């Protein structure tokens, strides 16, 4: 892997970010709107049952952590789509860049954007609701890392599908993450799900993280085993998704980048 090539693509997406109001909106506007709506809704519910569990913190922290999954997968899939919309894939791959450098650049762009959006969202929560996300203390680190892992494998899986089937399935870039959202139990305990959905939730690594986060909010601690399970499932899916993306890329080379895009 060569740093200059990875940097080239990161730079390409930084330039795009600078020029695109869509991208700036994605990073700051939508998270703010979401947090305001969810925060105000939770405040309203809280007014009915003042002694109930800290519903505002549960909802907003769930939303915040899901924001990382969303951003990580979005940066991978939408940046791939950006190359397809611009018919720029051929220009990228006639250069010496290789598959792993290409994938790494997506990951770096995702982390960078999340590093901008997440603190911004934390600030919004603090200013609007006086809630400190550092409440999670050291648990904060594994939670964020595991959320990134989920975002990456979702992103690679969707990118593999887009490479195979082209832009006609591009809607998956915006919708696929939400398909697993209900089973990830972002805002409610897994036990709220119907029986069959609880079984599916067992295979969704984010569900363990959200369960753990809620436990930290209510008890101040959680069983680290939840995070270990999440890590193992995430790692398994991540490996599978990268293999799938690679095989899709090889498939595209059979058809030809120009012919397909």
């Amino acid at each position, binding site marked *: 892997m060569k740093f200059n090539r990875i*940097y080239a693509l990161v730079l390409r997406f930084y330039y795009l970010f600078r020029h695109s109001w869509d991208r700036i909106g994605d990073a700051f506007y939508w998270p703010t709107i979401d947090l305001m709506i969810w925060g105000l809704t939770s405040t309203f519910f809280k007014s009915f049952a003042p002694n109930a569990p800290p519903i505002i913190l549960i909802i907003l922290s769930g939303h915040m952590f899901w924001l990382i999954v969303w951003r990580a997968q979005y940066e991978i899939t939408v940046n791939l789509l950006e190359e397809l919309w*611009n018919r720029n894939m051929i*220009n990228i791959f*006639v*250069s010496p860049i*290789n598959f792993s450098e290409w994938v790494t650049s997506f990951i770096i762009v995702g982390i960078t954007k999340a590093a901008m959006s997440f603190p911004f969202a934390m600030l919004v929560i603090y200013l609007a609701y006086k809630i400190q996300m550092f409440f999670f203390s050291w648990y904060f680190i594994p939670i964020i890392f595991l959320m990134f892992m989920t975002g990456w494998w979702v992103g690679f899986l969707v990118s593999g599908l887009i490479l195979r089937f082209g832009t006609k399935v591009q809607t998956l870039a915006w919708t696929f993450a939400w398909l697993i959202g209900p089973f990830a139990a972002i805002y409610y305990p897994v036990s709220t799900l119907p029986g069959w959905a609880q079984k599916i939730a067992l295979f969704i690594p984010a569900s363990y993280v959200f369960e753990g986060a809620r436990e930290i909010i209510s008890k101040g601690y959680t069983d680290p085993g939840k995070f270990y399970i999440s890590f193992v499932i995430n790692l398994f899916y991540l490996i599978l998704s990268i293999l799938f993306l690679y095989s899709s890329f090889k498939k595209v080379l059979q058809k*030809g980048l120009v012919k397909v895009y």
Partner: protein
Amino acid sequence: MDILQAMSLTKKFGKFTAVNNVSFSLKEGEILGLLGANGAGKTTTIQMLLGVLTPTNGEVRYFGKNLLENREEILEQVNFSSTYTQLPWLLTVEENLTYTSYLYEIKNRKERVRKLVEVFRLNKLFKEQMKELSSGEVTRVNLAKAFINHPKVLLLDEPTASLDPETSDYIRKILVKERNMFNVSIIWTSHNMGEVEEVCDRVVFINHGKVIANDTPEKLAKTIEICHVALNVPDGLKRTIEICQNKKVHYKLEARNIVVDLKEKDIPGFLRELMDRGVVYDQISIDKPTLEDYFLQVAPKKAKDEI
């Protein structure tokens, strides 16, 4: 020395064979025209030469090394430009060239970008977004991008297709100059046969996915025996037409002008016969066969033969 070798390249898409056992080579400092009608297999061949399309059979070698096995090392020294590909349209010319410069290991990036901007007359467009540029301007940015890494091999897909005649001529001169100065080897596809005759040292004709000719433009043109004899005939046009019809030669009329297609060796006899029949002509021009004649006559004929 062969800098690039296409060895028995074949590409099949299902039952359709787009490229069939194509072999040719490119020498150091050579400009090779890759010609053929639309759908002949040129783009498919170029994609295989760039490693963005996997051949069904065959091998591509640059500098004696297999492309698939030495992709990164080879592509550091190769580049590509096509009128039909785009660059990210929200980025400015400067940004496109800058990020591309990082894709290759280039020393003095800023200086290189500045030099290319001058060479391809992009100074006024430097801060413009790609979406604001005309197609000719985009082509020039694409060409600047293709030169960013001081390539030893350049693959140019119709590099002057969207340019006005003055800019086309300028770009052709730039490309030939670069070749002369740095010994760059170039593969050049074009439908402009005059351009190909002007710049290419050799041409490879592809038709229906097969190489049907591989020679210098002059030699290929010479394989066509037919010359175009244009005469302005103030007196005796009907007699001239009769002579053409008797000899069963093709002719084309335009007012008092007649253009007769004749083999070079038959021209003196034809002119003598005109004199004998009292035909008066006050202007004559004889156009020797060109690469375009070759393209128009040989390619369709070969295609028909295959059908």
